[in-house]
């Protein structure tokens, strides 16, 4: 037994020997994302898992995630059976993304945590939620101009919806090869909303408009809150059947919250289920950040297009907010239009904060929650439209 040979053998079988420069860069990116999540608190619940998934998937010889298996799966050369036979831990986790189980379960939790009361008391908020999808379609056109395919452009555009689960849902179906970059861009920009939105809020509104105090909205009955999720599911899923998984789960969660007879279910959806799925979703999204896929010029283009999409969505909501302000002769504060990008409740908080900067006695939070939840429905409809065009 030669000790030198043993040590050499050990070295050759270690991850250090198999490390490529791509692995090294991706491990560094994983650490940077961890720093942003832990120190800067950028959407830590998701970014922490994404960052760690990125680290795990780029460990040489660990075989936790197999990009080649998923490429073969996409080419219809193998099925889930082969993945379960030959896959690693993260391949198993990723099945939940590929089958859209995780984004839909996250939406169920979001529904259970959402109060549609502000939207019901002021249905015009839905217009702001629609207007704030402008960035989705502008970035879609931009992505085509930059050479992406239609399906990839649709996945990149949906970053402008500022809705993580919707972005993951659409991308996993249309362009799974871009999932890591799109998820990181979407969640990073959502965390940066307090920095991205205010300059455009000031640019597109006057100080007088930002000072506007909105009237108290009417009280919404319990029966109305119960009927709403059922009505929305029927209406939206019949209009765009591809949105049925997302809207159905969102509204099921909301129904469980509002009925008052399923408190245990609502509690599970909001807490235990949401937390478990968040762990699985974030780690498996991080797992797709394989160096050979991620370290490409496309990632840089996605990062740029993502921020453009966010800015244009904010501007779309604000512009329609200004229009509604003028049409109602100053009864609507246009700042609430910026909350039409989903990012619940961060975007509504930013609108409230900017309103208070202009007028300290101004409380826009509940008014901004209307467009905010309308944005969730709006981005799901946008995703459904894109899926119906580019889906298989």
């Amino acid at each position, binding site marked *: 037994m030669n000790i030198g040979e043993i040590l050499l053998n050990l070295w050759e079988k270690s991850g250090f020997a198999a490390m490529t420069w791509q692995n090294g860069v991706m491990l560094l990116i994983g650490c940077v994302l961890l720093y942003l999540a832990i120190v800067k608190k950028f959407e830590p619940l998701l970014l922490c898992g994404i960052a760690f998934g990125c680290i795990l998937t780029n460990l040489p010889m660990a075989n936790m995630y197999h990009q080649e298996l998923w490429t073969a799966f996409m080419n219809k050369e193998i099925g889930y059976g082969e993945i379960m036979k030959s896959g690693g831990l993260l391949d198993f986790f990723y099945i939940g993304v590929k089958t859209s189980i995780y984004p839909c379960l996250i939406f169920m939790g979001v529904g259970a945590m959402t109060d549609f009361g502000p939207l019901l008391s002021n249905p015009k908020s839905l217009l702001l939620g629609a207007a704030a999808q402008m960035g989705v379609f502008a970035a*879609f056109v931009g992505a085509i101009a930059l050479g992406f395919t239609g399906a990839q452009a649709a996945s990149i555009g949906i970053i402008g919806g500022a809705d993580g689960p919707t972005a993951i849902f659409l991308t996993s179906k249309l362009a799974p090869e871009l999932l890591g970059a799109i998820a990181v861009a979407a969640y990073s920009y959502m965390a940066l909303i307090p920095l991205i939105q205010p300059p455009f809020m000031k640019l597109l509104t006057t100080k007088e408009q930002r000072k506007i105090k909105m009237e108290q909205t009417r009280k919404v009955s319990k029966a109305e809150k119960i009927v709403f999720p059922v009505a929305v599911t029927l209406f939206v899923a019949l209009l765009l059947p591809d949105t049925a998984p997302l809207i159905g789960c969102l509204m099921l969660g909301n129904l469980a919250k509002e009925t008052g007879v399923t408190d245990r279910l609502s509690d599970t959806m909001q807490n235990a289920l949401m937390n478990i799925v968040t762990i699985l979703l974030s780690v498996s999204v991080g797992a797709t950040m394989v160096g050979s896929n991620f370290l490409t010029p496309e990632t840089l283009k996605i990062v740029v297009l993502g921020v453009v999409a966010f800015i244009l969505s904010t501007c779309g909501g604000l512009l329609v907010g200004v229009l509604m302000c003028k049409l109602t002769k100053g009864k609507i504060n246009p700042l609430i239009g910026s909350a039409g990008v989903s990012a619940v409740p961060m975007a509504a908080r930013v609108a409230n904060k900017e309103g208070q900067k202009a007028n300290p006695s101004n409380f826009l939070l509940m008014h901004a929650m209307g467009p905010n939840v309308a944005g969730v429905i709006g981005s799901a409809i*946008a995703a459904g439209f894109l899926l119906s065009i*580019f889906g298989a």
Partner: protein
Amino acid sequence: MENITLGQGGILALLGYATVFAGLILLMLLTIILGKFFMATAKKTAAPAPAKQEEAPAPAAEAPKAPGSAGQLKLYNVEPKTAAMVMAIVADKMGKPINELRFLSIKEVAE
């Protein structure tokens, strides 16, 4: 529909944005109709109540007292949970500990 031209993309983008608007405008109309229906139903059920009161006016019931406020705080159309939240916000905004503040009543201001 894999590779599309910029022109096709522009048309699809306009169509998509219009679809989102159309969908949410229809949803807005549905929500308005639902709201009107429920408000009308609420008015109908609330209408007979004053007539009964005229026949036999009942003594005004004292507002329920909020738990945890030493029995002093009166709540008018406000849930104890909401009241607790309001008190916490007020204390936070004033920068004072909540046990140093005295709340007498919390009333919901109707539109």
